[in-house]
C-alpha cells in the first residue's frame, strides 16, 4: 500500500472511533476540507453533514463550483448564505488579525446553528500543519491566525476533530488523488477568502474589484500555462491595495486604485519563491485589468518577494 492508502485506512478508523454521534464538517470546497469530508463520510456515512458558508467573499463562480463538487462526491450537504452578516461585521475593519478573528468567530456561529439543527456534537475541520504552525501557540509566534485555529472562539459548544493535523498540502493532494477528490489540484485559497486580498475597507464594492482582478489573473495564468509559456504556480491571485494613484485615460486625468499581482512556487506553503511570469503574460494581465476595470483600476504592480521574508498572501 502507498503512504496515501495507509493514511486513508488509519484516518477512517480513527474518525469512526472519535465520532460516535453526528458531525458537521466545515467545507470550503478546497482540497483540505474536501478530503476531510470524504474521509469523514466514509467513516460515519449520513451522520455527517457538510456545510459550505457563502461569506460573500468567495471567488467568481466559486459557490456553484463547490455545489457541483459536493454533489459529485455524494455528500450530504447544505449551502448557507451568510454574506449579509459577514459584510456587516467586517465594516470598517482593516487590521488583518482582527479581520481573521471576526471571520473565525462568524464561521463558528454559523456552524453552531447548523450543528444544532442537525443534532451534531462534533465539528470536523480540514486543518493542516501550516494552519496551526502559523497561528501560533504558547511556544510559537503568531504569523497569522488561520480562521480554523487562531480564529476559533475559546468557548465553543462542539468537539473539534481534525484528521489532517500533521499533513502538508502536497501530502493532502496525494490523499485527494487516491480518494478521487476533484479539488486535488485546486490552488490553495485562504479561509478568510477575498477579505485578506482586500487591504482597503471590506465593502461589497471593494470585494467586487478584487474578485474580478483575481479572476483575470487566474484566467491569464491558466491560459499561459496551457500554452506552455510557464508552469502553473502554486498560488496566483490579485490583491487590492489601499492606495490611489494618478493616471491618464483617453486624455482625461484618472485617480484610481492599484492591483498587485502575486504568484508563487512552493511545495508545502512553508517557503515560497515568487513565480517568474513571462513579461508578455504580465503585460496581458495588466492591460486586461486596466481596460476592463477602467473605472476602478489604473495601475498594476508585481510582487517579487519570497517567503520568507514575505508570506504568500498579503495578510
Amino acid at each position, binding site marked *: 500500500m502507498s503512504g496515501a492508502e495507509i493514511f486513508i485506512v488509519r484516518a477512517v478508523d480513527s474518525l469512526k472511533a472519535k465520532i460516535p454521534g453526528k458531525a458537521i464538517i466545515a467545507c470550503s470546497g478546497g482540497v483540505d476540507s474536501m478530503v476531510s469530508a470524504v474521509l469523514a463520510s466514509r467513516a460515519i456515512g449520513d451522520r455527517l453533514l457538510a456545510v459550505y458558508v457563502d461569506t460573500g467573499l468567495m471567488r467568481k463562480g466559486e459557490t456553484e463550483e463547490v455545489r457541483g463538487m459536493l454533489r459529485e462526491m455524494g455528500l450530504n450537504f447544505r449551502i448557507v448564505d451568510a454574506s449579509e452578516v459577514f459584510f456587516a461585521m467586517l465594516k470598517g475593519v482593516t487590521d488583518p488579525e482582527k479581520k481573521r478573528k471576526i471571520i473565525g468567530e462568524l464561521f463558528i456561529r454559523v456552524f453552531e446553528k447548523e450543528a444544532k439543527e442537525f443534532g451534531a456534537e462534533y465539528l470536523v475541520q480540514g486543518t493542516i500543519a501550516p494552519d496551526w504552525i502559523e497561528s501560533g501557540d504558547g511556544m510559537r509566534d503568531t504569523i497569522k491566525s488561520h480562521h480554523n485555529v487562531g480564529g476559533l472562539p475559546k468557548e465553543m459548544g462542539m468537539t473539534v476533530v481534525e484528521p489532517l493535523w500533521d499533513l502538508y498540502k502536497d501530502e493532502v493532494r496525494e490523499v485527494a488523488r487516491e480518494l478521487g477528490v476533484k479539488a486535488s489540484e485546486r490552488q490553495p485559497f485562504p479561509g478568510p477568502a477575498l477579505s485578506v486580498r482586500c487591504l482597503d475597507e471590506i465593502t461589497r464594492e471593494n470585494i467586487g474589484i478584487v474578485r474580478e482582478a483575481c479572476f483575470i489573473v487566474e484566467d491569464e495564468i491558466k491560459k499561459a500555462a496551457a500554452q506552455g509559456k510557464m508552469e502553473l504556480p502554486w498560488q496566483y491571485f490579485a490583491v487590492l491595495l489601499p492606495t490611489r494613484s494618478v493616471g491618464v485615460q483617453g486624455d482625461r486625468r484618472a485617480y484610481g486604485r492599484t492591483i498587485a499581482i502575486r504568484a508563487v512556487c*512552493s511545495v508545502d506553503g512553508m517557503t515560497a*519563491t515568487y513565480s517568474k511570469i513571462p513579461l508578455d503574460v504580465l503585460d496581458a494581465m495588466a492591460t486586461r485589468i486596466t481596460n476592463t476595470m477602467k473605472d476602478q483600476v489604473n495601475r498594476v504592480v508585481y510582487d517579487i518577494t519570497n*517567503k520568507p521574508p514575505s508570506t504568500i498572501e498579503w495578510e
Partner: protein
Amino acid sequence: MKVYVIDNGGQWTHREWRVLRNLKVDTEIIPNTAPFDRISDADAIVLSGGAPSVASDAARMGNNGEYLDKADFPILGICAGMQFLSEHFGGVLGPGAMPEFGKVELKVLCKEDLFRDLPSEFNVWASHNDEVKTVPEGFEVTAASQSCPVEAVRSLTRPIYGVQFHPEVENTENGPKIFQNFLDIVSEYR
C-alpha cells in the same frame, strides 16, 4: 533509531519532524520545557529554531542547556538551536551585519560530517536576525556565506553540530542529504 526534535517554537520545527519521518526514523516533537529524563532514551536530538533572540531572551529556550550538558548522544542545533549551543559553550552572539531571509549561497569549508559528499557551494534558505560572532573554544566553523561568516559549526570533542540555515525546508538544496549525513553520524556513534 530514535531522534527527538526539541521544539523551540520555530515555524519549521514540524518540517524537521517531517524530514526525519521521511528518512524512516522514529521521531517525535518534544517541547523544550520537558525534563531531560523525557528524552534520555534518544539516539540523537535536533534543537529546532525559534523566534526568541537567544542573546536577549534565553529563558524561552527552556531546557536546551540541560540537554547539552547531560546528553551522551549526537546533537544537531538549527538556527536558534545553533546560536544557543554556541553561546552555551562560551561563544558570542550578536545581531547579524546583514540579516538573511530566504536564499543564501553556502560555502562549505569542511566537507566532512554534515557536508559529506556534498558540493563546495550550494543554495540554502535562512531566516535569522542574529548570528554567531565568535565560536566557542573547541568548535570550528564548517560553512559560511557572504553575509554570515558562521553558517555551520561542529565541536572538536563531542558529536555536536550546528547550522544557521534551515536544511528542513524544501528550497534548501541537499537538505535531506544533510539530515541523512547527521543520521549516519548517529549510526556510527551508537
